[in-house]
């Protein structure tokens, strides 16, 4: 078997990085460039079709808006937790801050789209910079507890700062969606297809998501990214070799919460209504689940995790159409005479179970599974 012929080697170079310089590239191989293009085309095509056998059109569109929003927020958390090693349960607070910022700046003050998105990011960055120094003093378990407390205090703030947040009953608002005059994401017409509001939001959200992905990818493959990873692996050692812990820990918090706030802003603008109960600790846990399932410290994994975690309930719903286990209440039977648990509960339990199972059996997440499968096919018939 002459596998290592020049042509074979060239083929492999198309698909896998072969040098350190490749590792630093944004898109190391032609294979990756093609995949990214396919991914972008897939997103662009989303408003035009619906897999009717799976979900109906409105669910399908909303699903992808949600996935996009979660991708943006989870990128921020992965930068903080996956790359810098600062475990935070405070993400829900930053998301909430962004949501209320979009209500205040977008709806109340009428700042145009790009403006209020940037202001959300600024609010997030400022809040993150204030919280960040905690990480200098606390690490590990203690940081987890304090960020948990932050969410509790944040929810209290959201329920009581009535003039901005509308208090416990929440706030209804319409944030502007016009990027430049003539381009309103709520009313796009493309190729004779009039977009619904959700379909327009797919483009808006994924445009922001793409910008965030490129941003985070660029951060992690350059000097700050290496500093973040040095802090993650051993913060004392990093400081000794000259990495400023203050700059990089606080910086990681600032960037992470800026991304979270942008996600929150988009979430609020899309839902047109936010209330404090949405920003509970369980939202933080969802984000943590996404980066665990996707893969800590990978950008691609974050996207995979968001897709997986948000698709899961829909897949469960679909499965229940064919078979309802005896312990689940039949969603089509309003009286639900038999069965103990509702579909919502089943989904929530499955989400918890997925977190636990991934941590137990595949702590490096979907990204690791993907890499393993890819390596298997690329190196076939050899195992390495």
């Amino acid at each position, binding site marked *: 078997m002459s596998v290592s012929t020049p042509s074979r080697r060239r083929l492999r170079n198309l698909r896998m990085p072969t040098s350190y310089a490749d590792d630093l590239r944004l898109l190391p191989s032609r294979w990756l460039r093609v995949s990214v293009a396919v991914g972008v085309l897939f997103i662009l095509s989303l408003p035009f079709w619906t897999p009717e056998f799976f979900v109906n059109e409105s669910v399908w569109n909303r699903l992808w808006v949600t996935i996009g929003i979660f991708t943006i927020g989870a990128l921020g958390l992965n930068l903080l937790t996956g790359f810098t090693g600062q475990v935070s349960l405070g993400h829900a607070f930053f998301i909430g801050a962004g949501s209320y910022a979009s209500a205040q700046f977008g709806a109340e003050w009428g700042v145009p789209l790009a403006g209020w998105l940037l202001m959300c990011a600024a609010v997030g960055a400022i809040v993150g910079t204030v919280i960040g120094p905690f990480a200098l003093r606390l690490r590990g378990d203690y940081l987890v*507890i304090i960020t948990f407390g932050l969410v509790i205090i944040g929810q209290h703030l959201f329920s009581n700062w009535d003039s901005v947040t509308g208090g416990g009953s929440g706030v209804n608002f319409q944030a502007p969606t016009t990027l430049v005059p003539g381009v309103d994401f709520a009313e796009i017409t493309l190729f004779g297809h009039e977009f619904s509001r959700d379909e327009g939001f797919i483009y808006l959200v994924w445009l922001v998501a793409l910008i965030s992905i490129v941003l985070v990818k660029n951060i992690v493959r350059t000097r700050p990214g290496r500093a973040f990873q040095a802090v993650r692996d051993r913060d004392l050692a990093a400081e000794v070799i000259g990495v400023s812990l203050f700059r990089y820990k606080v910086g990681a918090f600032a960037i992470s919460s800026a991304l979270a706030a942008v996600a929150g802003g988009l979430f609020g603008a899309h839902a047109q209504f936010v209330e404090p109960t949405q920003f509970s600790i369980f939202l933080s846990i969802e984000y943590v689940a996404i980066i665990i399932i996707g893969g800590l410290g990978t950008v691609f994994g974050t996207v995979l995790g968001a897709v997986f975690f948000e698709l899961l309930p829909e897949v469960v719903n679909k499965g229940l159409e064919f078979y309802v286990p005896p312990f689940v209440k039949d969603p089509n039977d309003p009286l639900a005479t038999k069965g103990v648990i509702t579909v919502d509960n089943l989904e929530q339990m499955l989400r918890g179970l997925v977190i636990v199972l991934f941590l137990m059996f595949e702590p490096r997440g979907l990204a690791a599974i993907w890499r393993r499968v890819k390596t298997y096919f690329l190196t076939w018939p050899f195992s390495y």
Partner: protein
Amino acid sequence: MGKFLDLTANGVATGMIYALIALGFVIIYKATHVLNFAQGGLVALGAYFTYNASVTWGLPFPLACVLGVLMTAALGVVVERLVLQRMVGQPVFAVIMVTIGLLFMMNAFIEAVWGAERLNQGDPWGLQTVRIGDVALEHRELWAMGTALVILAAFFAFFRFSPLGVAMRATAVDQEAATAQGISPRMIFALSWGIAGGVGAVAGIFLTTGSRAAEPAVGLIALVAFPAIILGGLDSPIGAVVGGIIIGITQNLTGGYINTNFEDVVGTTFDRVMPYVVMIVILLVRPYGLFGTKEVQRI
């Protein structure tokens, strides 16, 4: 002054319940170095198991309590065996997140089986209050204080004098040396989860009887024990008790003075948040809690 004494006494009663929850955290943390978010779920499940035994099955309340505590303790052991045992040696982050995933599941399980509405357990302690001067205490609070004192005394005696308790302390100090003495760490880990489940269930019962009711949010309310263990230090059982009582008093005084007088500034339910504010301040001044062991870092 009368109001102050009354609020403080009631705060001590609440604080004793927090002390029980905090003790559960600390026992697990000392033995396994796991920060167990699922403790909140165990507290809630203990309450619901008891509810199920006393209301649904119609058992007498004391029997229902014993059953609830035993079932929760058994659940703690099962969870440890099935899940946490496999996480030994994994990074801290992963282990914490596993317990959070468990909390997520327990929460869903409770809503699934018992629904999200508030369930009243009735008033097994009686509704009367006892007055001593200005201090008025409900019977439930007296029972809570008494039970907590007995349980805490029993545990400190257990750790101090019984071979098993000494084995647990030995494992906490030096696992390898304990293993060399013939102590099985696996057994100790499972035992600590069982104890944590048991004391958590007792706390859960007191948190959901009398004027209160069982609701899924109990799992999160129970996490107010975090400020308590931060105050006391993650690995100090005495600290857990002291911290729990301090947090209970703080919460009650906040409710009595700040909530009512500064409602416009801090909002109506500030007493629920106050423990966390105290916690953050304490952590900024002393990053390892008031009585916790300072970690020594090396490169």
